[in-house]
């Protein structure tokens, strides 16, 4: 009887046992890991000399250390990091950094000023994407050895090759990926054909950060483990997993299931829905990057200031776009210098006014409007802005066709100056400094086609104003803070009065959705969000 009952009992309970086993698979070992879902489309390299974009910044700042850091709560405040002290000398042309003595790379090598000097020199020698900012300060591969040098194991000296505001250089050291200090010996051990380790560093890391790179499968997955030795208190979590995810709906479902701790790149409707959940938190971080509408001032039509004024001042429904298209993507911002800086100005009073636009177009000899095209990156919120613009342009008789494309196609056309109107995003470096924004969006030192200054949005739009350039250059070199602020005000007012060819609409917001169980996460305005302080409440 007893023997007979055993198999019967087993058969009856088999589905239950299978179901229990199936459910048991749901409990996954993630309490000491931070699981982040985001698009890693732009993460093409981890080499500090070549890596561009916010994705790379987010990852690299946890693998490397920089000489200085910027306070996540106040983007204008510099903090010591590898450099425990720094000073200005030689009339603002020399920066001297005193480095810590207790820092070691993941390889175990001690970090010295020689490594810091070599890392910066390497950026210039390779002359890849991240060299641009250093070249703008006058550094070149030719002067790198003389102007960037280690005086002793703990002292690094930077002699600025040309006059500039040293605060801007300090900001770049604190926020740019190119300012990270590399383990020279490890990198050179992987050098191929004189590439200074570039090929190897594209997919590897050699830093001193709180995490070490464990695995990177591009457009799939990146994992980091807590560094065995770190000069600051060790990272609280054992592991960080970045998962490439582009579908907003999928991110949303995974957050709801608790399978992700942090998600970025969600669509506005999904963020809105998730914001209502008690177990999730929405965090927005302002970036210096701007959403903008740009016209090509090389085109005869947009060379006329009246047409630019009609299109960029009176035919953009700023308030409407900000209220309906931009929530969670950006905040209304109509000047090139973002708010929160000493040189920031109040928002101008641009209003959507088709009647005024029609009058201006009539004065310019185009009473019936004209046909044009709007190039736009085919994703939110760009398409929403472009659609709104198309409708508002039509109210003044301007018939615009929308040409959607990839970022590569849209900005490629802009770099070639072969566009009429672009709805895009850009400008504003990571540095919280007015020059950074004005240089990126407005400054255009040589408007000739042959100059090919395609890294300046000002050149791309073909708009040049010698007086405006002079104001920006003077402001940068003015040591007196009040006078500098006044010059930046004048530059912005002139840009406003002369109707530059690029019109900011909004300052970019980087919106992340976090599980409430995540503690200590603070998004950084420069993208360098450090995860060493992040922890998680244990799963119930």
């Amino acid at each position, binding site marked *: 009887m007893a023997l007979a009952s055993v198999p019967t009992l087993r058969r009856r309970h088999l589905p239950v046992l299978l179901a229990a086993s199936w459910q048991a*698979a749901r409990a*996954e*070992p993630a309490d000491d890991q931070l699981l982040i879902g985001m698009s890693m489309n732009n993460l*093409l390299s981890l080499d500090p000399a070549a890596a*561009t974009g916010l994705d790379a910044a987010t990852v690299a700042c946890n693998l490397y250390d920089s000489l200085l850091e910027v306070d996540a709560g106040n983007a204008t405040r510099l903090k010591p990091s590898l450099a425990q002290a720094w000073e200005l000398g030689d009339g603002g042309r020399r920066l001297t950094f005193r480095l810590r003595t207790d820092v070691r790379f993941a390889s175990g090598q001690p970090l010295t000023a020689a490594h810091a000097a070599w890392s910066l020199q390497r950026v210039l020698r390779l002359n890849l994407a991240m060299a641009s900012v250093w070249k703008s300060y006058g550094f070149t591969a030719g002067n790198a050895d003389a102007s960037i040098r280690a005086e002793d194991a703990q002292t690094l000296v930077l002699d600025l090759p040309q006059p500039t505001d040293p605060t801007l250089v300090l900001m770049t050291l604190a926020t740019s990926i190119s300012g990270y200090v590399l383990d020279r010996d490890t990198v050179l051990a992987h050098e191929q054909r004189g590439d200074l380790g570039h090929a190897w560093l594209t997919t590897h890391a050699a830093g001193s950060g709180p995490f070490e790179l464990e695995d990177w*499968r591009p457009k799939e*997955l990146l994992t980091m483990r807590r560094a065995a030795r770190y000069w600051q208190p060790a990272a609280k979590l054992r592991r960080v997993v970045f998962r490439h995810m582009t579908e907003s709906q999928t991110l949303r479902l995974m957050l709801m*299931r608790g399978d992700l701790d942090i998600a970025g790149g969600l669509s506005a409707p999904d963020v809105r829905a998730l914001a209502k959940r008690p177990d999730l938190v929405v965090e927005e971080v302002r970036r210096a990057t701007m959403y903008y509408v740009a016209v090509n001032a090389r085109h005869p039509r947009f060379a006329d200031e009246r047409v630019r004024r009609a299109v960029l001042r009176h035919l953009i429904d700023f308030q409407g776009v900000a209220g309906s298209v931009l929530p969670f993507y950006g905040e209304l911002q109509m000047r090139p210098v973002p708010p929160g800086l000493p040189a920031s100005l109040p928002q101008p009073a641009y209003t959507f006014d088709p009647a005024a636009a029609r009058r201006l177009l009539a004065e310019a000899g185009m009473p019936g409007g004209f046909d044009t095209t709007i190039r736009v990156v085919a994703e939110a919120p760009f398409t929403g802005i472009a659609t709104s613009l198309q409708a508002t342009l039509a109210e003044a008789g301007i018939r615009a066709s929308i040409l959607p494309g990839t970022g590569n*196609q849209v900005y490629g056309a802009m770099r070639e100056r072969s566009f009429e109107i672009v709805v895009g995003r850009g400008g504003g470096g990571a540095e919280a400094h007015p020059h950074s924004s004005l240089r990126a969006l407005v400054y255009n030192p040589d408007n000739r086609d042959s100059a090919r200054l395609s890294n300046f949005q000002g050149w791309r739009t073909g708009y040049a104003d010698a007086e405006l350039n002079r104001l920006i250059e003077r402001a940068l070199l003015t040591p007196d803070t009040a006078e500098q602020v006044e010059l930046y005000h004048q530059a912005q007012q002139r840009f406003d009065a002369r109707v530059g060819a690029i019109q900011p609409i909004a300052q970019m917001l980087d919106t992340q959705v976090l599980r409430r169980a995540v503690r200590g996460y603070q998004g950084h305005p420069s993208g360098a969000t450090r995860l060493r302080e992040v922890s998680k409440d244990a799963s119930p």
Partner: protein
Amino acid sequence: MKARWMRGGVSAALALLGLLLLTFMIGRVMPLDPVLAIVGPDADRATYEQVHHQLGLDRPLWVQFGRYLGDLAQGDLGHALLTGRPVTEDLARVLPATVELATLAILLGALLGVPLGVWAASHHKRLPDHLARVLGLLGHSTPVFWFGMMGLLVFYAWLGWAGGIGRIGLGYEGTIPRVTGLMLVDTLLAGDMAAFRSALRHLLLPACVLGLHSMAYLSRMTRSFMLAQLSQEYITTARVKGLSRRRVVWGHAFLNIRVQLLTILALAYGGLLEGAVLVETVFGWPGFGSYLTSSLLLGDMNAVMGSVLVIGLLFVALNLTADALYRVFDPRARA
């Protein structure tokens, strides 16, 4: 026999060469700039031109293509811009993920679709036939990404039966030693049963979604082949001889459609291997389709050419396998 194989080999090589040439030319006229993807939109002209030169894009097209073929002859598919790694390494990484997904999908599709097609044909113009046609129509006409999203919503978000996105739970990512690249096999080899269950939970839903699409196609094709067979005189004869309906359908008619079924199975499997991109996108499946699409959008021609070559080779291999199986199933082909 030997001559036939040689003829087959030469025509396959010519087809692959043509495929590569066509892809190369299309890639060069596409309005995409791989240099811009590498240097970023804010790089200055000098940097841009340096990278342009490093990629060899300043050389004439025929020189670029010639170099590619020369490298290919030595088994070198170049480096991918997308990943900075050799394309061969990338393909070895992404292909097993898709093979795992597509194989389970085609098995599900065939195991359900073929009997459904036979059932529909043997009940022509009756309820089972109508039901199968509606199912086929639904499976074929409903966008696969919609099925995917709905599947995730119901079986993952609401019921919690299926895994989320990816091939395994995020907590296991990067912890399973890679041996075959097939996650189910690798988790078993690692002896980690919890990870195996996680991998299985992640695989089933996308495989079902993909399999549903194949099932619809296979059932419709099977039905059509079977209808053609069931109207033949030898079927009438068999019925007149008093054979059971089941014997007539499965023992006579079905045996005669095996060769045709093989062809469409091979094509359907090939289609899944290179065309699972929508399912891969919805389920964050790091497979071949996603890799090819990302490479295309970036203008990463080494990766695109390598992927196209693999697709070509897959189809050639599937066709050769189908050819070989014809001779097993059809005595006339052995002659």
